[in-house]
């Protein structure tokens, strides 16, 4: 009962066979080997699986792969060209915002979607935008600093 799906992920077209109930997260990780999108609660509570779907941040664990036909998906692997860093990725490194790193891909993609919407946020707005992404290592401070610093870099 698998169905053929054409998915555009990080600008590349992929043909996959997937049963209708399979999630985007599962297809990204298991079929496409894109394990930069992380897996944890599977109930849209923690945010580690955040990807961009047509530019908006979504929890890939509760999006069906079949809903993504003909839409554009960006995962952490596709945020910057190979060998390059997006301003957000560089800022996360520079600000010391990475510890275990498991929440970081989702955190960066949530921030990316938010900065598209609001390129000049306050720190409080950034914290509000990231409130759906749990991090247990950092206390969020250096993450907020990184997003603020990336926002400045992206504006200039």
């Amino acid at each position, binding site marked *: 009962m698998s169905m053929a799906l054409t998915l555009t992920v990080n600008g590349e077209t992929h043909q996959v066979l997937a049963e209708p109930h399979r999630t985007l997260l599962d297809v990204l990780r298991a079929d496409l080997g894109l394990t930069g999108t992380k897996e944890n609660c599977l109930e849209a509570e923690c945010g580690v699986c955040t990807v961009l779907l047509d530019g908006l941040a979504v929890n890939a664990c509760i999006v069906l792969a079949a809903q993504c036909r003909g839409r554009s998906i960006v995962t952490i692997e596709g945020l910057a060209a190979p060998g390059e860093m997006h301003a957000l990725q560089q800022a996360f490194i520079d600000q010391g915002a990475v510890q275990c790193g*498991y929440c970081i891909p989702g955190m960066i993609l949530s921030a990316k979607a938010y900065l598209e919407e609001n390129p000049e946020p306050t720190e409080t707005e950034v914290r509000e935008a990231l409130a759906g992404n749990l991090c*247990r290592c950092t206390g969020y401070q250096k993450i907020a600093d990184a997003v603020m610093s990336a926002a400045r870099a992206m504006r200039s």
Partner: protein
Amino acid sequence: MTETRVLGHSLPRMDAAGKVSGTAVYAADFSLPGMLYGALLRSREPHARLVRIDVSRAARIPGVRTVITALDVPDVRYGGAVKDETVFARDRVRFAGQPVAAVAATSLEIATEALAAIDVVYQALPPILDVAAALAPGAPLVHEDWTSYTALPILHRDGNVCNRARIVVGDVERGFEEADEIFEHRFTTASVHQGYTEPRAAVAQWDSSGQVTVWSNTQLPFEIQATLSEILQVSSSKVRVIVPGVGGGFGGKLRVGVEHFAALLARKTGRAVKVMTTTEDELRAAYARQPAIVELKTGVTRDGRITAREGRLWFDTGAFAGSGPGVASVATLMLAGPYRIPNLRLEGYAVYTNKTNFGSFRAPSGPQANFAVESQMDAIADALGIDPLDFRLKNIVREGEEGPTGQVLSAVGLEECLLKVADAIGWRDRRPAPGRGKGLACGWWTTTGGSSGVYVKVNPDGTVALNTGAAEIGTAALTGAAQVLAEDLGVRLADINVVSADTLSTPFDFGAQGSRTAFAVGNACRAAVAELKRQLFVLAAKQLGVDESALSLGEGCVIAAAEGKRATLAELARLSQASGGGLIAHGTFIAPPTAYDAKRVEGHVYPAFHSPSFHAHAVDLSVDAETGEITLHRYVVAQDVGFAMNPTYIEGQIEGGVAQGLGQALSEEIVYEEGRVLNANLTDYKMPTALDLPRIESILVQHPSLVGPYGAKGVGEPPNIEPPAVVANAVASAVGVRITSLPITAEKVALALGERAT
């Protein structure tokens, strides 16, 4: 202080680029071709006789490759201090969530479906729901056969008590007689989960030689190797544990979690098997922090000198001892606090109940004991009319004084921490507005011992490989250790590559636990450089035609400064490869034993703190008089880190540790009802989000340890200790009610305010 080039600088961690680009591989990401997926059937009963398990329906489901129960695995009892655990429940289940059977199938979906097709008949028994019930006269035993279990001989066990650790100093009765006032308080704390974002995960595969390789996100690969050897009944050389990457641990990934299920299912099926926990399983059946009851009786003179303290702390350790006996021991040192108290009688109990086996969580016992001790310090100060800061300064331990078990304390930076944190928070204006108040708390903690080995190899291009058995769990401890290596070897951090945590090929390490990794691996690196230096200087002396005594290391070279000559490490490595098998050194370290007075302790598995750290926290908060809701304005930490190896990541430890501690202080609680967890999901188990936390300000105090690399002390666990106490003290300061149970929810505060009004 010596000038350093690499160490002490806020350099970016070595694994950052892989983590931000999604290429870093964690255990949860690891897979093998043809791999099966394992799932666990867990008991829904907290306490029951296991009458019958019928797996035949499940085994017939297409795609199911095996279903195993206690009958299919070696009949082995394992465990740390007490060998009281089995892989599956045998004829009795002891907590809701205990594994009863496991399935391996071609997909996780099929494996999960098969769990529902396993028929289990339970005969429910009355569960022991808490410590009070476990200690009641005539209480049934969680382990009827406890006397037959193998256990550390040092433990004091008695029925449902799997250890009673005790410290006795002086004569408490006389101490209370000398007191002008005696204060007695009781505190309780709830269980909280480590909350790592990566579930526990393992992939196991057996090869034709009978060796099993397990890729796991454990903090302790060598302990897992030993435990698996015991459970699987094979020699430890037949067990290889590799840690790919770890998405947070905080103590929750110390003990065997899913590795044994993966290995047993893989052995049965002849296929690679992956097992990963669900969030529900994490919250009902992992190694969360022990709930505690603490009773403290402290005698003081009118002018604020502590004369005696009697303290008892009971931990609910759950259905198995696990870390409990050790954590109960550490608790007694924490009950003394960083104070000079001449007469002490302190006891820590680990008590069996029908709950999950609570375990080690960042500074195990620290927050529970500190919440009690530091709350009581403020209550006493208030009653005596002394400023809480002054009361602490009057009683804190100082350089050269004794700890509770007689260890001589050195590098005591506590007074500096207290003064700096008080100054930063504006302590002299403690109640700046109605409903607003400031609190402070202080504490001490250990840098755990245990040995570490490293191999350090100089490559023919001049780069250096650091091979360590320690796992990087997110703290950047291995970046810190590599900074030590780069510093001593005279190379850049960028010249170093780290290979870590593979029990087959990396040297032994006691593991990423107890704030020890950067400390111990860093010191092992120093030892390795001393040995490499010897090898390098022999080669260089010959090459440069100078005396070995004229040589030094620097700029990636061996330098003969007076002669104006130098040889690069690359050159010397090539020379060694051509003539002597290459440059490699084995460096080792074990913290020297900390002397203590053995007559003061009983049942104690952790009698002294190695290279202790000292710290003080302060918070400024407001309490809504109507709703009891707490708003945090500022939070300041002053921590004596000995020497700041990498300030950015030390701040990261402080900010993260405080965040976790504020979760325990304000919102986190695994809620039990009749032995079952009610909130096993991340909506109802409330960890702080980015919006819930204030900015956390870090002040790094540096009183160098005599033992640590360049004077460093352990830094990872301490920030997690004081947040509950500091919040309780600030709430009391703001609105005059003292909350003695964690978490300090708005509801509790509002109720207390309401009671006071009536």
